[in-house]
């Protein structure tokens, strides 16, 4: 059994600290701890933002802006252990802002954006069934209408409540329920062959 004795040097990098410790330090102004959080959760946040936006275009900017805002708002985070989900929500707001701005500026050339790359182009032989199923889900989500997709991701991935989704999207809760209902029916139907 490993026993750390006083005096025995056990230097471990900050990267091994848990989320709560890191978020606590970062909210106290430790930039190094925040950097570890960026490295740890950056890919998750980026993947989520890309799904939400339906495109990898602009996603780096959005996630960057999200982390900068997160740094400013960290002292308001009441439960530092929940920093991962909280980062998703900060990124969620940034992505929605960007989507709204995009709509305002280029409502017309909707098709010009590079599509989200889904892993369905890999050779079938190489795909384990897991990947095939995941691709099917990935496609099902990609093909959902934008609002439905946003509602679905916010509910199922970021853990928003119906009310919270309504607030952030500027929709009545009943509308959110309707959109989610359609999204779910459609996703479940598309996943049916993979059951």
């Amino acid at each position: 059994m490993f026993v750390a004795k006083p005096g025995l040097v056990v230097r471990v990098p900050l990267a091994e600290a848990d989320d709560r410790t890191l978020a606590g330090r970062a909210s106290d102004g430790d930039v190094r701890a925040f950097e570890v959080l960026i490295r740890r959760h950056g890919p998750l946040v980026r993947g989520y933002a890309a799904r939400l936006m339906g495109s990898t275009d602009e996603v780096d900017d959005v996630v960057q802006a999200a982390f900068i805002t997160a740094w400013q708002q960290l002292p308001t985070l009441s439960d530092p252990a929940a920093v991962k989900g909280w980062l998703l929500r900060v990124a969620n707001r940034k992505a929605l802002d960007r989507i709204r701005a995009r709509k305002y500026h280029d409502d017309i050339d909707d098709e010009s954006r590079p599509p989200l790359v889904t892993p369905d182009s890999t050779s079938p032989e190489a795909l384990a069934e897991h990947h095939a199923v995941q691709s099917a889900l990935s496609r099902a989500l990609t093909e959902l209408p934008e609002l439905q997709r946003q509602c679905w991701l916010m509910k199922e991935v970021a853990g928003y409540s119906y009310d919270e989704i309504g607030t952030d999207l500027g929709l009545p809760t009943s509308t959110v329920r309707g959109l989610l209902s359609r999204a779910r029916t459609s996703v479940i139907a598309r996943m049916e062959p993979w059951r």
Partner: protein
Amino acid sequence: MTPTDDTSPPSGDDLRTLPDRQLTNDELAGHTIDELIDYYDAGLMPPNDSIDTSAGCQLALADIAHLRQLTMHLVDDDSAAQPPVDEGWITSILSHIGAQVEAGRDVPVFGAEVDSRVVITEGALRAIVRAAGDRVDGVFVGRCRFAGDLTELGAPIEVEVEASMLWGQNLMQTAELVRENIVADVRRHTLLNVVAVNVVVQDVRRPSHVDEGGDGREGNDGGPEGSDGGRSRGRGGREGNDGGGPEGGGDVSGVGGTGGAER
């Protein structure tokens, strides 16, 4: 908004999109998918006989559970599929935030006998406390708070730090070292009257670089394991451990005991 974003709830017709099996309201004993998802989210509580005894509902619930699982995999896969984090991108974020450390209160460092007033910010004081605690092997200091009037020289100040410690460390001894370091460093840099340093052990990490003989447990990377359990509090420099008694005794603090106490 595209026409397909029609926000009305789906009619029965919309549900008949399944190739093999029809998820009609009849099949679901009059329930809807949304109802079932809410039921699932509520942990199948309170028990609903009509759902529990309907074969169609049970199939749909299995679908829902399966989909939840797939979603979590998808999020993991999306994370893993991201390009390696670009160093320039990180540097750019850090350069934006570097100048924005919240300063907090001004803490006087010298007495009134000195003509000019010298202060350090609360933020800098936190950095001193952090560095002092981090000097103890295996310890990471987390959040740090001060109770008392920092702006008044000589006022009694209590320091509370959260700490992450290493599995196998004697938590009491380690907390004592943390306390000693913090008191020493704060006294070295300021004239603050520190009357207590409270150490809250909020995480006990399995060291990832130590082979534990493959017991299947991984290094704690923010997971629930070992978190939120041990509270080792000592006041006024006194030895104290009134949270989750270590079960191991001797030199080794039982992580199971401290970590599991409040789970």
